[in-house]
């Protein structure tokens, strides 16, 4: 593996990691705040991808596709939280079951409207192609996703650490009862985080589509599984953990894909197993029960 290939793989891995991070960070915060393991999170990712494809095909504007996917994510997330998750508050099992139901329904709706097959997704013309620096070839779109991911990560990090709302969210992850006792409506905060996480997931989906070249109804569950691996590695509820976990999973996937494409998931599962053995609560997890 030459230096050029190595740089290329690293960029690819980081870019994939960023898109998984958009999915995993919301998942992790939602879980950290209310103990809700949102199995519909991947469906919101997929919904974002499909929205992006439709909007881009009709308007030709990728910015519009990004924005509308996030809007769809926020609204669907808000509705899902109101109609289902809220009703089984406090019951971990029922929450998993109900969000799984939402996942099934959303996936089937997408299949009913767009068909079960993949839909090819072109890279926007402005971002197509690549730059060649010496023997290193940098794919423009990959760099774009990397940049967007970084901007989002830094923004969310600043929101969490520098604003009052972010402080409430972090406190809520540490101890929801205490925050509630201090007179803050934690459920309202949770609704907000849920919808915001849904928007991030949808953004991840719309960016993932051109990167892999297609959308399909199964992309939600596949990427959600990677996001699960990320949060298990990083630690549930930890934003930093999600970021680090995503980078690890993205890079590990990219490097193994070069040597042995079949084994790229196996390496990630192995990584997860090792973390679980050594640090059951993840690299940045907050203590046990």
């Amino acid at each position, binding site marked *: 593996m030459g230096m050029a290939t190595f740089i290329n793989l690293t960029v690819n891995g980081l870019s994939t990691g960023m898109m998984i991070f958009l999915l995993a960070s919301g998942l992790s915060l939602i*879980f*950290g705040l209310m*103990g809700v*393991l949102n*199995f519909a999170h991947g469906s919101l990712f997929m919904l974002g991808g499909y929205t992006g494809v439709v909007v881009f095909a009709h308007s030709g504007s990728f910015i519009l596709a990004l924005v509308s996917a996030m809007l769809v994510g926020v609204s669907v997330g808000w509705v899902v939280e109101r109609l*289902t998750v809220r*009703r*089984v508050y*406090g*019951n*971990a*099992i*029922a929450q*998993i*079951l*109900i969000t*799984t*139901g*939402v996942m*099934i*329904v959303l996936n*089937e*709706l997408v*299949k*009913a409207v767009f068909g079960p097959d993949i839909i090819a997704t072109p890279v926007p013309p402005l971002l197509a192609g690549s730059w060649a620096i010496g023997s290193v070839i940098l794919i423009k779109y990959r760099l774009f996703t990397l940049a967007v991911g970084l901007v989002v990560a830094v923004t969310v990090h600043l929101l969490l650490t520098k604003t009052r709302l972010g402080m409430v969210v972090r406190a809520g992850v540490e101890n*929801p*009862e205490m925050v509630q006792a201090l007179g803050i409506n934690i459920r309202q905060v949770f609704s907000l985080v849920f919808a915001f996480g849904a928007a991030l997931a949808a953004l991840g989906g719309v960016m993932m589509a051109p990167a892999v070249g297609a959308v399909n109804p199964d992309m939600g*569950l*596949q990427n*959600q*599984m990677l996001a*699960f*691996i990320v*949060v*298990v590695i990083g630690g*549930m509820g930890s934003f930093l953990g999600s970021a680090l976990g995503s980078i690890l999973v993205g890079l590990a996937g990219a490097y193994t894909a070069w040597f042995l494409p*079949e084994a790229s*998931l*196996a390496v*990630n*599962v192995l990584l*997860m*197993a090792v973390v*679980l*053995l050594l640090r*059951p*609560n993840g690299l940045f997890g907050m203590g*046990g*029960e």
Partner: protein
Amino acid sequence: MARFLRKPDSSEVRLPGAEDAGDYKEGPARTESPARTEPPAGTAAPHGRAKVPGLGRPGREVLLWVSGLPVLVVLILAVLPLLTSSYALFNLMDQILILGVFAMSYDILLGYTGIVSFGHVLFFGTGAYTVAIILKHTGPGLGFLLLAVFGTVLISLVISLVIGYLSLRVKDVYYAMITLAFAELFAIIAEKWRGATNGADGFSFRIPHFLEDPILFYYFILVFAVLTVILVRRFIHSPTGRVLLSIRENEKRAEFLGYNVIRFKLISTLVAGVVAGLAGIAWALQQAFVSTGVMATDKTIDALLITTIGGSGTLYGAFIGSGLTNFASDRLSSLAEHYPLLQRWHLIFGLLYILIVLFFPGGILGFFRGKRAGKGARGYRTGLQKGQR
């Protein structure tokens, strides 16, 4: 198997307050006998070796009803070949029974232990592939079938031990996430290891001669289903099964009573995995064909739908759910030629499933049982740790 059915150490049973665990039973647990070996002092029924301590006359009638109906159903199923000779019907009945057993094994986890698995299909698929690969390479003999059963049991035990050890130590929700990852890994192995599995195209194989006749095969599956139901019932009603119920109802309390919660959960996943593996064997024999479809996460979701719709924590609910969904999907797919939307029959079951989780957590069977017993069968909704983080 017997090792896992043994009762917990007597010291555990005699812990002060251990009988309290029985008070937290809800739904099906109320109508059935608690730990048979050592009924807690004070709750034993007046006359001799009564099976239903603490239950009055109405309770006993309910018990008769629940134990009588399954026998009746089995009798009707047993005479079915006298009434019809439609091979399509036997085919459907086989599938209903096999998927019923698969869903019942899922119920051990969801309904009786209170953990959600998203990788249950990997046991099903492992069973299916084990029997298919062995029979393909050795020829259709009964001995090789038994070898496949033995292999499946062994592999299922190892896999559930590994996954359970990794995930159950942390939080219950980790089990859902980690099983999904492992199921995906197994699906990829099945797809890429073309030498053994022929990937997504799959391969067909010959089943033992005595199973080739559809009616004989139907009886074979019926006997298989009845035997597994008896075994799983026996397990659920064993002292170990009782402890699982108490874990479902209140994990903290079970832990404070001195039970090694993780060990009991591990036993639950072992038993569920083995039964799912056996269902996979039956499925492969029924189809005489395997492909990556037997490893698809869709199958886990089917088991979840079937169990929840039929009634989680009821054991027989799995068969009601399986009958309903398979029969309906059979009907709907023939209607789908005219109404394309019906091809997405999962949509209908998905919506039904959400409504059931929200409003009737006991599913169909729980709903009727609740009415009969005059109590709300609230299924998993009861006593689970509130606000678990």
